[in-house]
């Protein structure tokens, strides 16, 4: 059963990777990285149970606590409204 869930998570990570590569805007990439972060947390938790030593959940906890720091940092730099370094926005919608 853990096998089923972990393969689903791997598939979802692969899909997120496709989205991160295809873009088209930076926001899509950040979103994909964010989703892969969540999935990694779940993956690590399930791996702990799979190997029979679930006490190593600290790794997953670290991710949950600090993964959105990088999201904030990217938005800080990229977001012209935030007033720090106003770089122009590239991805201008799809199609």
């Amino acid at each position, binding site marked *: 059963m853990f096998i089923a869930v972990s393969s689903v998570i791997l598939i979802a990570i692969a899909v997120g990777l496709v989205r991160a590569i295809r873009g088209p805007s930076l926001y899509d990439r950040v979103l994909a990285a964010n989703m892969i972060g969540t999935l990694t947390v779940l993956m690590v938790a399930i791996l702990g149970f799979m190997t*029979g*030593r679930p006490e190593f959940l600290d790794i997953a906890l670290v991710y949950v606590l600090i993964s959105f720091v990088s999201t904030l940092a990217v938005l800080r730099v990229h977001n012209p409204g935030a007033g720090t370094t106003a770089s122009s926005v590239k991805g201008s919608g799809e199609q």
Partner: protein
Amino acid sequence: MSELLGHYNYWIVIVLMMTGFYIVIARPNLIKKVIGLFIFQTSVFIFFISIAKVEGGTAPIIEEGISVYSNPLPHVLILTAIVVGLATTALGLALVVRIREAYGTINEDDIHVQDEER
């Protein structure tokens, strides 16, 4: 078949290593070069940790009723190497920032052109 799969980890590590190496030598952008080095060093980390793995083993934290553990020594080496690697990457990025301030560009080709003009 097992002959092939037995080295799968190492081969992927080498592909990753070469990806980083390619970025470093083929791309003129200095930030890209630093990221190439980052990929290269992560591939070395994976290589060491792959060596440390023992079939059927578990994390090297001693517990009652477990007899097979993975090799802790590469873990120690890589644990410190990751933090040192980040510190040195930061140093590289700081150099990139200063180069940008001095030359106005982080493209290696443009920097060479400017150097020749001087």
